[in-house]
């Protein structure tokens, strides 16, 4: 991922969202772009290199998926900037819905760059009974046309060869054109047919009062209808199972059922898989049916614990370095939840308690993304989210935030208005616990039964909705209405899912592990030098009287700024009561986002709006913390 600066794409990939463009990109270049079956995954662009047999290579840029070259949102603006400098363009369409995609192709062709058209998902189109006459299509549009199936790799070799055969535009194409047409800003000529009307077959063009030539969109659609009627034949096949499901999923009543089944099933699978990876237990409705002796907890106990006990002996069982590295021994043993040493609780929290849930969450999330169900859920939640000043699509970044707040907040870029992005990002940072935090909450509170866990989640849901409803009255601007194309259901490709899971898991390990170890180290050092006593003293009125927790709990709350999962682990040695643990979990989820989230919040919202966001957070966490502290003892008693 790169910030938008002046790049001159040697090859630019363009296309609607959700046409398999990112999969095609990774097929061509080997770099893995995260692709999903919903609108707006590539909010920034991705770079890679395409190399052929003669060792020649091209830089390939995967532009954000957009519906048209109308600069209606940031993604389209990014794409327009890229087109302006592009020396070659490959425009990708979904062959199953040619008539929906050709208007965009015509817009791109009107930009007069050396272009190749790719009909992707050609295998699926064939399967659905869609026949396309490639030669005739190429003749009608005046471009070379290739059919591919990016998921299987079909047609990729021929495409890559054709790309190298394409005569590129001169390197200074943008400057040449701007000089020629005397255009003030690159974005202003998005709909000009920059080489005069004669070359764009007139039928789709019109002149405005200033003499600029624009594409006439209605004429474009008519022309597309004409082309499609001659190049595409549909053999009427019986409604496939997925098509029946598609109609059911947007039915006012059946659709709610479908979405509920999906949500419940997702939770069950995440929990089942997460616990299976930790314990090796195969659980069915509270009964352990079998145990595979490869649970991460057991593996850790068998391999790491003896090593650490050895080190503990070596260090003499106590003392400064022992307490920092190994932590406190509980009854002469290492207790990973309480010892809190850099080499004991640090890796245990990350690898055994948190990683399994990160894996199971992202596996389920990838499935939901690639299946195409998320936009349907967004449609159903649209009316509820309107009460919060949002429209249904804001639900997708929020769901991503349940994995990690950072990509969630970054994904708010798919929302077109500023106030909507502010509300969505603020709500994510306050009320959406990340997978790491959830793993620890479920792990620790789950020991006391389902009630405390449900109470924590219920409270956060209430905060999410409640804060949204209140914010709606303070944030100016009207709510844009939902207006989206819903992608078809697809059976997710196992290989693509595995690849995506690996990318996300690796990012988690790479980013979380060093931070976790470092934060445990810093906290231990600060403890050794008793630096927290001052904090505890200053914050004790809030922590003690408002939230009914011992004043030392300010330490985990502050550590939450670095890692939320480590912070939950730090509640354990404090010997909190169950209501205090519940209050702690809720407050921790809300009280200051972790430092990575904070950074991305500033990047996405700007400094001023981030401060507003934090102010809102402080008010909400004070109130809710106090409320929970009063309610929790009643609920669990």
């Amino acid at each position, binding site marked *: 991922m790169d910030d938008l600066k002046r790049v001159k794409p040697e090859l630019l990939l363009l296309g609607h969202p959700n046409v398999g463009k990112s999969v095609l990109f990774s097929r061509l270049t080997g770099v893995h772009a995260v692709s999903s079956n919903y609108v707006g995954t590539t909010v920034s662009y991705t770079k890679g290199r395409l190399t052929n047999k003669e060792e020649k290579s091209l830089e390939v840029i995967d532009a954000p998926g957009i519906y048209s070259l109308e600069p209606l949102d940031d993604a389209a603006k990014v794409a327009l900037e890229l087109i302006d400098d592009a020396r070659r363009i490959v425009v990708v369409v979904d062959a199953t819905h040619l008539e*929906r995609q050709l208007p965009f192709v015509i817009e791109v062709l009107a930009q007069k760059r050396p272009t190749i058209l790719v009909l992707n998902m050609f295998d699926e189109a064939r399967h659905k009974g869609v026949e396309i006459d490639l030669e005739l299509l190429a003749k009608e549009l005046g471009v070379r046309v290739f059919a591919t199936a990016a998921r299987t790799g079909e047609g990729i070799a021929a495409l890559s060869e054709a790309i190298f055969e394409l005569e590129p535009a001169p390197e200074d194409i943008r400057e040449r054109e701007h000089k020629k047409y005397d255009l003030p800003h690159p974005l202003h000529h998005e709909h000009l047919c920059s080489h005069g009307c004669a070359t764009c077959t007139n039928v789709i063009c019109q002149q405005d009062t200033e003499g600029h030539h624009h594409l006439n*969109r209605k004429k474009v659609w008519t022309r597309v209808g004409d082309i499609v009627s001659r190049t595409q034949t549909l053999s009427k096949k019986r409604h496939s199972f997925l098509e029946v499901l*598609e109609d059911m999923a947007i039915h006012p009543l059946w659709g709610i059922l479908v979405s509920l089944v999906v949500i419940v099933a997702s939770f069950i699978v995440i929990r089942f898989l997460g616990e299976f990876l930790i314990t090796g237990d195969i659980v069915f409705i509270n009964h352990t049916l079998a145990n595979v002796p490869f649970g991460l907890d057991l593996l850790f106990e068998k391999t790491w614990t003896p090593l650490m006990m050895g080190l503990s002996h070596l260090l003499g069982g106590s003392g400064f370095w022992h307490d920092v590295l190994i932590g406190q021994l509980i009854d002469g043993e290492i207790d990973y939840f309480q010892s809190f040493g850099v080499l004991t609780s640090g890796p245990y929290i990350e690898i055994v308690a948190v990683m399994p849930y990160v894996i199971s969450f992202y596996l389920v999330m990838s499935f939901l993304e690639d299946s195409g169900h998320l936009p349907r859920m967004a449609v159903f939640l*649209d*009316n509820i989210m309107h009460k919060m000043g949002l*429209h249904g699509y804001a639900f997708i970044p929020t769901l991503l935030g349940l994995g990690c707040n950072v990509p969630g907040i970054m994904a708010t870029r798919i929302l077109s208005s500023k106030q909507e992005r502010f509300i969505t990002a603020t709500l994510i940072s306050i009320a959406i616990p990340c997978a790491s935090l959830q793993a620890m909450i479920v792990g620790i509170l789950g020991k006391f039964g389902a009630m405390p866990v449900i109470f924590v989640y219920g409270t956060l849901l209430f905060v999410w909705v409640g804060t949204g409803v209140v914010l709606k009255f303070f944030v100016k601007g009207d709510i844009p*209405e939902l*207006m*989206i194309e*819903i992608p078809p259901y697809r059976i997710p490709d196992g290989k693509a899912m595995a690849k995506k899971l690996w990318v996300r898991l690796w990012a988690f390990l790479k980013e979380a592990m060093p931070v976790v170890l470092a934060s445990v180290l810093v906290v231990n050092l600060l403890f050794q030098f008793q630096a927290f006593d001052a904090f505890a003293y200053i914050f004790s009125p809030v922590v003690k009287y408002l939230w009914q927790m011992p004043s030392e709990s300010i330490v985990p709350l502050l550590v939450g700024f670095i890692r939320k999962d480590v912070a939950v682990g730090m509640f354990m040695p404090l010997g909190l009561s169950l209501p205090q643990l519940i209050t702690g979990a809720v407050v921790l989820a809300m009280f200051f986002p972790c430092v990575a989230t904070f950074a991305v919040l500033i990047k996405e919202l700007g400094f001023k709006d981030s401060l507003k966001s934090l102010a809102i957070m402080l008010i909400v966490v004070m109130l809710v913390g106090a409320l929970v502290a009063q309610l929790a003892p009643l609920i669990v008693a």
Partner: protein
Amino acid sequence: MKTLLEMEAGQRGEVSEIIGGQGFRKKLEALGIFEGRVLEKISQLKLKGPVVLRIDRAQVAIGCESAKRIKLSILE
């Protein structure tokens, strides 16, 4: 003539009028909705939820306020 909101699910109609400014029209045009286009309403979600319609074999969802501003003549 009925608005998209008033139409029954299952009915087909030809768009006869779109009430709104340039921006609104352009967004709809990008989805292939403009005067003269034929589409089928397939679902109306409860509680002022969006309208889902079928156009060119694709499903498109449109918020109910916008749906009020699209008028169609019903085809039987």
